């Protein structure tokens, strides 16, 4: 292995180990919605995300009411586990009605 590669590889590993860790994941949020709530809601995650703007989702999340809002929009949802909320919020925020992001198809 040449010096350039050694340096780059060592740098990459050091950078990875020294960096802060992300906690939430929009893709995981999307998968969670499909797996846990799509059937109860009767629509896909992009529709749920589009129910609010990014500011609205942010405000709802700041108040700790993501689960409550989901149950309001989908009365068939009985419970939303706390550990799912960060991922779901990331997904809703990413595909909010004013996000301009195009849902996958």
């Amino acid at each position: 292995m040449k010096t350039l590669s050694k340096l780059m590889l060592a740098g990459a590993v050091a950078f990875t180990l020294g960096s802060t860790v992300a906690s939430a994941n929009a893709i995981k949020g999307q998968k969670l919605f499909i797996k846990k709530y799509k059937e109860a809601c009767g629509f896909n995650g992009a529709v749920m995300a589009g129910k609010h703007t990014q500011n609205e989702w942010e405000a709802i999340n700041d108040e700790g009411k993501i689960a409550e809002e989901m149950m309001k929009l989908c009365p068939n949802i009985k419970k939303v586990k706390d550990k799912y909320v960060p991922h779901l919020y990331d997904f809703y925020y990413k595909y909010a009605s004013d996000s301009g992001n195009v849902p996958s198809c």
Partner: protein
Amino acid sequence: MTKSQFIEKKGEKMKKTIALSLVTVLATTMYASSDTDTKIAELEAKLQKLEKKLQSTNKTLTNVKIHDGQDDIKWDVDFRTAFDSLEYTKTSGKTAKNSDLLTNRLWLGMGYNPNDNTIFRGKLSYMKAYGDSMNHSQANTTDGATAYNTFDWVTNENANDNTVKVKEAYWLYMNDTFMGSEVPWTFSIGRRPSTDGLGINMREAMVDNSPLSHTVNVEFDGLSSLFTLEKVTGVSGMSWKLCTGRGLTNAKPRFQMDGTDYAAANDTAPWLGGDGASHTEDVDMYGFIFVPYDNGQYSLKTNWAKADNLIGFNGQELQNFQTAYGTYLQDLSDGTVDPQNAINLQLATPQFRNVGDMELFTAMFKAEGIGDEINDFLDDTKFFISWAQTKTDPADGQTMLGSTESETGTSTWLGVNMPCPLTDNGRIGFEWNKGSKYWRSVTYAEDTMVGSKIATRGTAVEAYYTKPINNALSFNLRYTKIDYDYTGSNSFFGAEGTPYDLNNAAVVQQLQQAGQDPVKESTDFRASISYRF
């Protein structure tokens, strides 16, 4: 005191009281008036500030509108830097390696929703090796065998130069009902997202694209139309999707000497020793993806496709070339090259032929989490098993995969992706696949530097680790090992894809005597960092 004095005194008291009251009222009013003035002044100041802020905001908005008002595309970025260490071990025991292949890959994703029913998506891409040069001569090597490197199917998967190319560009129409029925549907035309489909996406922590990647993983121009059937059938996630398109065109480029621009190619000209007839046709593919069940956790997906007029080398022509090449190599070995042998080699260079058609089928079961909240680890563990089959249908007088008969190949692929118990948010995965003698997938665009592991006629194993660094950066380690049982795993569809048994010493000896030394085993260790946002 007289009554009049009493009244006078009381009047004076009242006067004093009234006077005092008036003074108090006046004082209070004056004070109030002073307070109101202060408040009004404060409000005026605040208003002025707000007006200034509003003016500033309006100015900013105007600038934003000027900048973005006519911008009908929203961009996203996927930029990856990768380090690959490759090693090939040939049947003779000789090795070929590159201990540090460095590449940059950039995907500029585009998307726009002009209305609720229509989407545009696109992807510009370049994939370039560090230090690589224009037109890809692999920089400072002398190997001239680069003709296939610009092949359209792998334009964005081969390490090329720094040109940005279109990887995806298509529009998609969608509607909640189809001819009055409760069938949501889509229709899309363009350069479709036909690489990195379900299965192969997991090792890169990517969202899966359209096809099942066990049989199809190449770029493709065509159309697709999805019909979601769950509402009318009551079966969770049931859908049917038509996919069709053109993989290769037979049209000539512009500015033909004889004025026949874009006519079907006449690939073997008389002055090159051919008969002037066209030997290839447009390579078209059509098929469907049927999902019988998908509840978001457990899914079964199937994919059937038929590809017509596939390309490959004719068996006799390939043999003539190999004979001429052997003679030329012998000349080189002897130190004197007979000019006629050099000419014979050039004339014997085989051309692609239309060698026949092929059917491909895949069935994949996937679990997005095992069980129902048994524990967090199983909830977050993904597992899939996929089985696929390919079946050739040689054209008259041609061989496919070295056989004039219809040949069937099969492949099995298992994968698991789970949380890494040693690191926060890290994930590890293991994959295994095994392909039979005549297995022939169309997975040339797979993102594996030593060639498509899914195409392996033999056994491939892989272990990987992915870790998000923050919400934009992620780190990936991957080790792939392929052990080939037969030759031709990454070939096209003609005689060059003949499966010679690499575990048969006599066959290997014959190949080596004919000047061939096929790869028996290959490995690829990769480390990469990706920015995706």
